[in-house]
């Protein structure tokens, strides 16, 4: 740090804010935290497995034509009656390989989680920026809507959005639209938190000299918000986003578990848990156990990483 040569080099790097965050300081904190290392390892493994589902999974769990009903309810580590395939983690009631379904289910859960966080992040940042910078009635309106939103549990809002979407979309198209609907439903139910944070930071930045200078130069409000204010308010939001990723994954699983999420023919982790729950008390424990285990591992790993990131980026905790 005291080396005068390294400092200007780091700040001059073309990577900008992200590059600065990833400098040796953060890496050092990472290496010295065993929790962070283990959870990063778990998260990366699961994400890699999800990305490589097509290559790694023995069966395409979403392709009904590959299922053999006679393989149904095969216990873990046994061969199916129909296809003679070895089922590492058993099979479900339709003969779907649980092990393969986990790859695809994790991919779907991660996709829904990431996309919905991105959705609420974009929405929350735009609205928060607008509210903080423009002020007046616009601010009043946006923030009161956010207050109303925050007074409901997120899952309730997601259910509501889901119900509306379901009645609007014809059932034939529903299966294909389900992923988009669930992303929007979870995304819309979580934007308020980001909007609040961004607005608070914008209120601070708005009156700083560089913003006033930009305004005097005649730059338009939109450009000031996007180019000048935005880069200075995103830091705290990105930490919230990491933690919210785990929450979004759990929210998706909850919705699917309640039967309003993803369809049984394209099972996410939540859908798998839902179909397994029927058989839990009947002796076929594996249908529920493995998806539940993966869901817990995934959410826990991302949560721990998020917590660690929050602490690592907080100078007051050092």
């Amino acid at each position, binding site marked *: 740090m005291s080396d005068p040569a390294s400092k200007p080099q780091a700040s001059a790097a073309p990577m900008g804010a992200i590059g600065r965050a990833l400098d040796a300081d953060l890496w050092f904190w990472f290496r010295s935290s065993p929790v962070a290392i283990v959870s990063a390892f778990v998260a990366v493994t699961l994400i890699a497995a999800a990305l490589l589902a097509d290559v790694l999974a023995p069966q395409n769990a979403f392709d009904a034509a590959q299922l053999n009903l*006679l393989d149904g309810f095969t216990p873990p580590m046994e061969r199916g009656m129909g296809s003679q395939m070895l089922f590492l983690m058993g099979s479900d009631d339709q003969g779907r390989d649980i092990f393969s379904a986990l790859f695809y289910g994790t991919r779907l859960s991660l996709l829904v989680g990431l996309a919905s966080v991105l959705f609420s992040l974009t929405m929350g940042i735009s609205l928060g920026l607008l509210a903080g910078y423009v002020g007046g009635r616009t601010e009043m309106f946006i923030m009161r809507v956010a207050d109303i939103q925050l007074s409901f549990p997120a899952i309730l809002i997601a259910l509501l959005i889901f119900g509306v979407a379901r009645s609007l979309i014809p*059932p034939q198209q529903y*299966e294909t639209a389900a992923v988009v609907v669930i992303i929007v439903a979870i995304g819309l139910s979580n934007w308020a938190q980001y909007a609040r944070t961004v607005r608070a930071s914008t209120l601070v930045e708005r009156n700083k000299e560089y913003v006033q200078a930009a305004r005097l130069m005649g730059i338009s409000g939109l450009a000031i918000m996007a180019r000048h204010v935005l880069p200075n308010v995103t830091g705290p939001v990105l930490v919230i986003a990491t933690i919210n990723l785990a929450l979004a994954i759990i929210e998706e699983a909850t919705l699917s578990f309640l039967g309003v999420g993803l369809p049984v*023919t394209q099972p996410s982790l939540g859908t798998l848990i839902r179909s397994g729950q029927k058989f839990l008390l*009947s002796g076929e424990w594996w249908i529920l156990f493995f998806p539940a285990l993966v869901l817990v591992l995934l959410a826990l790993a991302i949560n721990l990483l998020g917590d660690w990131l929050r602490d690592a980026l907080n100078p007051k905790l050092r």
Partner: protein
Amino acid sequence: MKQMDKTRLPALFAATLLATTALVTWSAEAKTLRWARSQDATTLDPHSGNTGPNHVLGHNIYEPLVIRGFDGKLVGALATSWRVLPDNPSVWEFKLRPNVKFHNGNAFTADDVVFSIKRALMPAADMKSLLVSVEDVTKVDDLTVQFKTKGPNPLLVNNLTNLFIMDKEWSEANNAATPQNLKEKTENGATRNANGTGPFTLVSREPDVRTVVKKNDAYWGNAEYNHGITEIVYRPIPEAATRVAALLSGEIDYLQDVPVQDIARLQTAQGIKVEAGPENRPIFLGFNIGLPELRSSDVKGKNPLADVRVRQAINTAINRDAIQRVTMRGQSEPVGMVWSRFINGYDKAMDTWPKYDVAAAKKLLADAGYPNGFSITLHTTNDRYVNDEGIAQSVVAMLGQIGVKVTLVAHSLRVHFPGIQRGEYDFYLLGWGIPTFDSHYIFNDLYRTKTPSAGTWNGTGLSNAELDAKIDSLNSEVDTAKRNATIVDIWKWIKENDVYAPIHVQFIAGAMRSEWTIPTDVENTPKMKFLGASRS
């Protein structure tokens, strides 16, 4: 004072004694049956929904003229005797039970029968398909009713077992003179209230939560059917695991619709017994053959299902043995027709189905001009039949193997049934209970051209004038041999045309705490009053 004591004391003493004995016998027999199953009745209006869950509640509150016991045998309920008039084979005469009172105290008379049958024939009613042959109902005297049929109908009495009799006066006073129209989602005075003559009276009704009925002390059959139940609490519990857990924890006494995966476990559980057997109800898939173009298919300009080879291909691609073994865990019998072995017209020799053969099915599809298959949507209930959604998922997988890409829509019977009746689906799953135990009931509702009074559950668009004429002739054919020959004829036509793909006859299982003995009802509508009859 003295004067009063002298006269009143013996009376008071007698009353106390009576009350005490009554109390003692009551508490000795006080028995509440907490009963759960997968779904609730859609309404209490006895003529609005011709479905099992509606009749289950109906049979304990209302009564038909004739009723079937657990074994399916006909017994008189509100009628004591019935006959075809010797001089006119087109008229049935019913002698009604005297001294019967409705729950509100009104006397039961022939007027109520005439009113109820006419009500069940109204456009909004769902029971009218059972009464297609009825031309008129007339009152002869207070306890005699005559049904005039369009030509002789030797089997009319079989059609009346689920036709409940309502109180004319009460219905007219309570906005229930016409049946509730379930398709239009209206309500009337009989939707949540009831005034029947049955063994139990309605105490409270919360749709989809609980329905409570208590013993009707004024019931005419209390001596004959000493069922010993003082109260029934009926609760729908949609989740299979929750339902079983409720029985195991003692929260309920009797569980209808035991999930097949739990039968083995419940059989070994302490203090619980299971009764299982086949229901008189085939489960099958319906093809929409009437549309010029399917709504959910990628094939445009023509309807692939209109080609019998496509239907045969689907029939051949369904592995019924696998469904029986895995999805149903042995709790079903595959069938080759939309029938069951309980009905008149069943023929073991015809009860065959194409051998499961993917290659043959693919060839049939290719011959029909779809070598790469096509896409279609399958609609199913997820709360009505044993493992209905599981069966549909298996069908999706099996058809996937021959290139037919099926999108599955699973929903509640409340959505599914009106959809079938409005002919909205291209491809759907349905089960058909046969209360008349006769083939005609299957033909008339599932195969006959859709009219306001017949073909009400024919969602296939099938309309064949020649077939209709044969079906209608069954209504009035008195010569049993000739009638049965026509039935065979119709089944032969059905065998060649594959308008439905039959899957199986489901077994039904009931589980109960061991102090109860409730046999399996072949219609899956247990009538609790018969518990006393079977005990004595």
